[in-house]
């Protein structure tokens, strides 16, 4: 790292905009593959399910919620990355965020969209999903505002709107940069995108003010979104879900998996978009530290969950816990513990912390652990509720597994399109971190 040379302002523009505007065959191949996988694994099975019925999934009488919903939580969780990095670190003036926050915010947006897609996939009659929107309608009926699902609809749409505006607003100066660097149709489009940004002091001032405002607004939203998602579960009576700890449990898990997700994306951007000069070890190390912290909080909350369950002495809860820890899905539970509580501790070693490859592996393992956590929540509690005679079992069907795999392709596709439309590294904020003297070499 000693031979690291800071890029000049011009080089920043050059590097980032080249990555955006120059498209090689490798990109097209990746995008093509991604779209194909999304189509084959996600949309075709989904359309098949729409035609035939949700029965093509593995859900049954005792487990009417399945992988679709656990994936929904997972993707919502992943969305927390952007907010955290962008908003929290913006407010706390952590300048190291600046190179990576744009892609983190994009992750937020696209994982939210993927999560919303899973709601659609989950619904029995998705063609009536608009009934959940509180607008005057011919039946003269409001939706049920007592329903945690309505909270969800509200929270997710608000969060989606807010984070869309947030990412767009932060990109306006960069759109102007794209505009200035391009000609023809692209220039016309980016003229519109950038709202005629000129870079006057007043504009910068307004942007800064508005950006901070949204950063402050978006943090409680992010916390609320995942708390509300957790209430979908916690407001039920189901043993193993009816826990007060669920909201912080979900939020922590969300931030944890989101941060791990950023590490993964960072690695890929750095590697394939040649952003080595912008995404650097400091990011890795700082995110690593964050991961350790989150992992510890996560472990604490998990212990608390088990403890309170045990402490309750309720037979329902105890049996649900016992099945979770020792039943069919126990290997998955212990895998989750390993990946989310033990593996992240390796980051405490500097050699691991500073190694891109090992951090990539750890970040992926954490998200595997997190996706398992969500699956366990859905698959081990519901089939064993109150009446032992109705105890059942749930195992996902091929369609569900396929759609799960496909959802990653949907996310990747959206992200790949994104990097060709929006500078994946914030130009102006990176420039802010550079030493002013090095305007030119």
């Amino acid at each position: 790292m000693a031979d690291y040379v800071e890029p000049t302002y011009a080089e920043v523009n050059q590097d980032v905009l080249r990555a955006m505007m120059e498209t090689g065959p490798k990109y097209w191949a990746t995008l093509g593959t991604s779209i194909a996988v999304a189509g084959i694994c996600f949309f075709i099975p989904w359309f098949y399910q729409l035609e035939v019925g949700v029965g093509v999934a593995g859900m049954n009488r005792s487990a009417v919620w399945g992988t679709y919903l656990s994936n929904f939580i997972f993707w919502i969780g992943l969305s927390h990355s952007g907010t955290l990095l962008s908003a929290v670190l913006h407010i706390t003036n952590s300048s190291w965020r600046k190179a990576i926050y744009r892609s983190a915010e994009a992750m937020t947006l696209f994982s939210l969209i993927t999560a919303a897609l899973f709601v659609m996939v989950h619904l029995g009659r998705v063609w009536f999903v608009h009934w959940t929107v509180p607008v005057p309608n011919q039946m003269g009926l409001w939706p049920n505002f007592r329903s945690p699902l309505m909270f969800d609809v509200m929270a997710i749409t608000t969060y989606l709107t807010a984070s869309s505006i947030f990412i767009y607003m932060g990109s306006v100066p960069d759109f102007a940069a794209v505009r200035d660097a391009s000609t023809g149709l692209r220039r016309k489009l980016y003229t519109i995108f950038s709202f005629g940004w000129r870079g006057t002091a007043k504009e910068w001032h307004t942007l800064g003010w508005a950006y901070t405002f949204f950063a402050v607004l978006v943090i409680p939203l992010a916390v609320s979104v995942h708390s509300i998602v957790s209430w979908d579960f916690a407001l039920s009576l189901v043993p193993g879900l009816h826990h007060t700890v669920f909201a912080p449990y979900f939020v922590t898990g969300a931030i944890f998996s989101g941060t791990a997700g950023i590490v993964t994306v960072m690695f890929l951007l750095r590697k394939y978009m040649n952003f080595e000069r912008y995404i650097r070890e400091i990011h890795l190390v700082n995110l690593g530290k964050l991961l350790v912290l989150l992992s510890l909080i996560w472990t604490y909350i998990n212990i608390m969950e088990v403890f309170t369950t045990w402490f309750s002495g309720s037979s329902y809860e105890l049996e649900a816990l016992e099945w979770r820890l020792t039943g069919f899905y126990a290997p998955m539970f212990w895998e989750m513990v390993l990946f989310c509580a033990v593996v992240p501790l390796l980051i405490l070693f500097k050699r691991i912390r500073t190694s891109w490859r090992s951090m990539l592996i750890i970040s992926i393992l954490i998200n595997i652990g997190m996706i398992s956590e969500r699956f366990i929540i859905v698959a081990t509690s519901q089939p064993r509720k109150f009446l032992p005679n109705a105890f059942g079992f749930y195992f996902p069907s091929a369609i569900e597994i396929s759609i799960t795999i496909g959802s990653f392709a949907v996310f990747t596709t959206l992200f790949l399109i994104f990097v060709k439309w929006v500078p994946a590294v914030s130009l102006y904020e990176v420039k802010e971190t550079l030493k002013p003297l090095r305007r030119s070499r």
Partner: protein
Amino acid sequence: MSISVLEALAYFKKPALVVFGGVAGFVVGIWVNSTYFDDATPIQPIEFSHRIHAGENEIPCQYCHVYAARTPVAGVPSVEKCMGCHRSVATDKPEIIKVAQYFADRKPIPWIKVYDVPDFVHFTHKRHIKAGLECATCHGPVDTMDRITRQQPLRMPWCVDCHTSKEVENGRDCWTCHK
């Protein structure tokens, strides 16, 4: 080079115009269909005229729709009932000859439903008639129509509005009408 947004927007004027044209056409298409091609006035297998029967001859509704006050459905008269009069009345008219043919063949007349509620709706004529509603309240001035035209959309707000304004007992409970 200018960076005026308006100028950039102007560039997209023509595509926007085309899109606008498409959208406007779509709306017009829906309007045309529902105004001129709506199914509120289906052509029946026999050109039965309510104007002549209910209007000129002043036959009461329930003379033919006998079940209206007794059962959930109003019912259409049996072919036999038509023939009850038309054995002697207007036997030479082409439409009546058609009816007679149906009767001779022991075939029912496949009337097309003008008023139809979905299968998940429980509607009962009996209750509405016993509540004192006139047939014309929902079915309109049938005695002036040669071909019956649907007078009401039979959509839920139409039902609910009436139940609300007349303060029907449990009139807004879903299970009063949905089964």
